[in-house]
């Protein structure tokens, strides 16, 4: 059986300090653990750790737990926590920072569609400068679970018949400069 209790010696306080130095994450150690973030978060009831607990995990240095959580991916960036936090902690930016590190360290939950979508979106924008909804959904489904496409057929048809689903793959004219100068390296 897996041990659920965490021991202090398994924590990485040095990592917590590094996180708190990233842009947007500065307020980490001023958190009061009041729970306003979890209370206002529309998704906290679906999370494995509600936002208050994620903050607690991060500042104690429980890196694997925080980075491997579904919470950080369920965060839809609505910023409700950030405007409600009495210490003005940019919790949404902390979540972003954890998402990026989870991608780099490959610690995100496997076959969980949200990081897959984020990666496909990233690649599409990097390659073409714009996103095209139809192609993005196809790419995400092929990489996570192609069966979901069947469930999307009705909605897809609704969009086609109302003229809202373009088959075009959008692309900007100056895509060379975008790739060469602006976003030279692919990180995921």
């Amino acid at each position: 059986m897996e041990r659920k209790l965490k021991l202090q010696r398994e924590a990485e306080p040095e990592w917590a300090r590094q996180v708190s130095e990233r842009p947007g994450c500065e307020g980490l150690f001023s958190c009061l653990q009041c729970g306003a973030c979890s209370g206002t978060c529309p998704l906290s009831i679906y999370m494995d750790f509600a936002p208050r607990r994620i903050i607690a995990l991060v500042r104690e240095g429980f890196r694997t737990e925080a980075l491997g959580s579904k919470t950080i991916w369920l965060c839809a960036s609505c910023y409700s926590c950030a405007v409600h936090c009495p210490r003005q902690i940019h919790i949404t930016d902390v979540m972003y920072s954890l998402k990026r590190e989870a991608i780099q360290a490959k610690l995100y939950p496997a076959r969980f569609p949200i990081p897959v979508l984020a990666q496909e979106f990233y690649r599409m924008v990097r390659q073409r400068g714009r996103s095209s909804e139809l192609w993005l959904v196809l790419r995400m489904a092929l990489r996570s679970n192609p069966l979901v496409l069947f469930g999307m057929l009705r909605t897809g048809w609704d969009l086609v018949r109302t003229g809202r689903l373009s088959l075009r793959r959008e692309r900007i004219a100056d895509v060379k400069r975008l790739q060469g100068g602006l976003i030279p390296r692919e990180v995921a």
Partner: protein
Amino acid sequence: MPTSYGYFPGCSLKGTGVAYEESLLALFETLDLALEEVRDWNCCGATSYMSIDEGSAFLLSARNLAQAHQEGRRELLAPCSACYLVLRKTQDYIQRYPKIRREIHEALGNGHVGSLASIRVRHPLETLYLDVGLERIHSKKVRDWHGGKVACYYGCQLVRPFAEADRDHNPMRMDELLRAVGVPTVEYSLKTKCCGGALTGTIHDVGVNLNRILIKEAARNGAQAIVTVCPLCQYNLDAYQREIRKQIGEPVDMPILYFTQILGWALGADIGSLGLERSISGRKTIQQWFTKVEEEVYA
């Protein structure tokens, strides 16, 4: 010459949110305001891009701002809440973090970085409320509202940090604009609760659940339609009502409109130019409120 604004449509307004672009352009035309699209704009990066790479996420927005700056724009209108937030967040970070400013400066290879932050990125809601004003909107009204009560739904990103489109806790500007053309709006406590964004496409059940709550609450407060300011909110609330009907066992079929559709209609825009036929839910109601009234009252 009409006043012209720089216009950043974003990817959604060219796809699932095309009715938003159509009605926005039609509405601005009735006010003699021109929108000129930023040349060769790129995707703002929305919420997903920043989850992968922060540095280049800011560069994406910086390129758009630089493009607008080159075109001599002091103001840039971003009707999509996600674009609006990302552009403004980029400006905020450029000002607060020298490292990010330096990176953008190096990548763009010109001296514009400081001026990128000075371009005023605005949402059309703000432009209509502050520049045009309630009085002028009211005085330009040519059609009387024959439809029902509506709930104004502001969504999340329009009123969050970095934004000044409206107050964050109880925004009222859309309510005031609609009331100025005689449209009754109801109290709606969930007006800034998130629609889940891309969740309907990823963790579908969770995404649909959030929208079910939003629709049910609007109906309970006596609204017969929800009015939105963001293409993703409109899509999420509009596209999954079939599933929501099944879940709650009630015959909800609620129109989800853009505020620009109602204002454009009231101010006399051509009814075919507002993208009203692009709605998925509440089509009968929409026909009754707009098309039929047009035929019977304004023919």
